[in-house]
């Protein structure tokens, strides 16, 4: 499929001060593309969750927004630590967030399930000691 453009957002581990900036920019771009309503709402939720996951759980990584004529793709990839039990991690209410994150109101264990629920396509791959890659696709209404 023809790729129209791509933006890379580096996200640092435990950088709570800039947390949310990437997803805010993604929302802004979608609005400029004239994407609204339900799709915008779902991308907003999923991109925020995935960005916060990078901040809270990863050792740093990046979020890549790719826009195609028919869809928006978000790929989050990090440098570790990897998820030991993917099945458990996808369960609602399960969280390994630390005290710092919990004190900021995160760690409800809804991050991954929320992403899956909001994306039209969702896939996750993880290797312990290496990292996690999450790919989400959102179909654009014609």
């Amino acid at each position, binding site marked *: 499929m023809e790729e129209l*453009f791509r933006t890379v957002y580096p996200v640092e581990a435990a950088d709570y001060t800039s947390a949310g900036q990437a997803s*805010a920019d993604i*929302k802004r*771009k979608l*609005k*400029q*593309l*004239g994407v609204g309503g339900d799709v915008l709402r779902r991308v907003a939720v999923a991109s*925020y969750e995935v960005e916060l996951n990078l901040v809270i759980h990863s050792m740093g990584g990046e979020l890549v927004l790719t826009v195609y004529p028919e869809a928006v793709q978000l790929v989050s990839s990090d440098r570790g630590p990897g998820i030991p039990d993917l099945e458990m991690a996808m369960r609602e209410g399960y969280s390994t967030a630390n005290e710092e994150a919990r004190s900021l109101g995160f760690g409800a264990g809804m991050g991954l399930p929320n992403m899956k629920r909001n994306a039209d396509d969702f896939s996750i791959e993880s290797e312990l000691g290496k990292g996690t890659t999450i790919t989400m696709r959102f179909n654009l209404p014609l």
Partner: protein
Amino acid sequence: MEERRYHSVRLDKERCKGCTNCLRHCPTEAIRVRGGRAHILDNLCIDCGECIRVCEYHAKVAFTDSLANIKAYKYSIALPAPSLYGQFRGLKRPEYVLEALKRVGFDDVFEVARGADVVTRAIRERLREPDLPRPLISSACPAVVRLIQVRFPDLLDNIVDIRQPMEVAAAIARAEFCKKRDCDPADVGCFFITPCPAKMTAIRTPIGQKHSDLSGAISMMDIYGMLLPHINEMQSDPDFVPATRFGVGWATSSGEASAVCPENSLSVDGIENVIRVLEEVENNKLSDLVFLEGNACIGGCVGGPLTFENNFVSKNAIRHLVEQMPAVHPDTDVPISMLTKYAMRCDEPFRENHAVALDENRAEAMRKMKRMNEIIERLPGYDCGSCGSPTCATFAEDIVRGFCTEMDCIHLMRERLQVMAQQMVELAQTRRE
């Protein structure tokens, strides 16, 4: 082409110096400086009046009705916003202000605070219904509603579909006046005494309503001086039904939320703060909230750009005023029959404003965005405003929209000149050899 929208906020060309003060303060990036003076982009302006506040040269003005305009009607009713009471320090009772309004020429007065009481009850009834989006967002501040139309179109369904207090007040005021005086509704002009330009715009081009019940709006700033000498006697009207302390409380931030949903609501004031909270709502981080009150102005309506008194002082004045009022809630004070006797629900949907989109055609918008990103890479990122656009990103946007060229950036221009100068030197040297 879309027809030009009405705006209360306008530019006084003579006074504008072409500085960049207003550029950076506009929450919707609706101002550009071109040809030595500011221009307000009609389709993006939400009439919040931030530019009026920051312009040192008073080149941004709000158009409102003059007091003389009330003479266009056989009868005129003043509808003071509750924030008007906050303009008078030490005010003991709203009735002093109501009497003063009659003395400057109005045939009757009706408190918008009373409208707020009725709206409070209407929203509380609405909140009982199932399957409402969370949080429900107040529709009272027209600048916030327009902000959502421009910047948060996915939250339009969250806006509560109940009319603004000034509209409900106008409908009741006109009906009661006509009954009392046995006259034609067309002969009665209802004028809102407004703290802000956004309300004036909402009267001329209503949002959520096909037609406004108001005839116009008079700026608090304009009428303040005229009222001042008359604030010495209370009105004596045997039929007068005073507003509750909750209705009057709508004048300040959190007044609406604490009347409508004290159990689980959030109130936020100041347009930049409202934007931050709406981002949170968009990220689904506030779905545990039932009600969200957003006010474009700091302190709420008492901080409106057309108020006279300092917003903190008037917030305090309102606090003292309501403390002296009986603790009766609109739940018991407003008869439920009022909610069916007068129209409460909006009769128009809140529509998306597509001005943010780079192009109507998505493929074209995507191409423009790609080009825009390439241009941003070349720009210095100083956000200096010298080009006349508020930020480097909006400058890039303006280029792809065809409003300016890269050479309007003085930094790119300087680089280009350096290269050209170097080339000229080289050219001169080759000749000499």
